[in-house]
């Protein structure tokens, strides 16, 4: 398919997507006011016996562990690759000197 007809097809598809998106968007069910903002659920499935502080601390602690842990993993992988690079470069240099 050559470039001009490909472009035409592209425009056609975009138009089709926009046209089709309209009925989907129009089909939005009426949203209750309770959907805006933070609203707690009136029904609670379980007794809230876990104190909030524990949850907050676990959440933040987890985030810290993940972020620092990931940085550490990049660091250690990079170290491994750098060591290998040095080893291979030394081998090549030794080979060249001999060869």
């Amino acid at each position, binding site marked *: 398919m050559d470039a001009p007809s490909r472009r035409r097809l592209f425009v056609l598809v975009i138009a089709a997507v926009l046209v089709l998106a309209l009925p989907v968007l129009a089909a939005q069910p009426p949203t209750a006011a309770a959907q805006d903002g933070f609203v*707690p659920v009136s029904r609670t499935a379980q007794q809230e016996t*876990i104190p909030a502080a524990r*949850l907050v601390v676990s959440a933040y602690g987890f985030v810290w562990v993940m972020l620092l842990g990931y940085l550490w993993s990049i660091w250690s992988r990079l170290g491994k690759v750098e060591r290998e690079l040095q080893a291979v470069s030394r081998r090549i240099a030794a080979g060249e000197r001999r060869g």
Partner: protein
Amino acid sequence: MRRLFLPLTIVAAGMFMCAPFLIDGAPYESTMGLVQKIFYFHVPSAMTMFVSAIVCGVASAVYLFKGRPAADRLAAAAAELTSVFGIIVLVTGPLWARKAWGVWWVWDERITSTFVLWLIFNAYLLLRKYGGPGSERLAAGLAVFGMANVPFVYWSVNVWRTLHPKTTVVPTLQPGMRGPFWFCVTAFLLFYVLALSARAHLEARRAELETLYLDIEE
């Protein structure tokens, strides 16, 4: 980027150290109290995850259609970060939900879709690892499809009734909350940029190693 890396890292570390104090100073939300403070890390993580998904998708598209290896390395780095921030979102969310809604997990559209997006990018990582030679291309194709799913994810909340707070929450935040929130967003995005460049650098060094090994074999 090289010269800026260390100073920016210090800035990011500083921001993360300041964040808890700012968050502590922010007003309590009327109905949820303390547990709502998870929001300050949960939402920025979600935003970063989506940004990373889009970065991966765009880089993959560039790699697919232009063939630039640097784009492929960036895509691989972004996919890994999407997975990491996805884990953060999917763990901090239920921790918050347990208090706010009484359950660890609900199957509403946005939560489900975020989970699906996370699965897609994990599939990307699996494909790269186990697909054998040439799997970078295939993974790039998958990432493009994954990125096309992001609008469906974000849009699902605004179209269908759901338990999750609607996306219009952020613009209507109380003034006291806005400062810490956007501070955290900046901190997370800064961290993301730094981690992304570090991870892409790792991929570049690996590629150099590959070429050296090939040279030896000749």
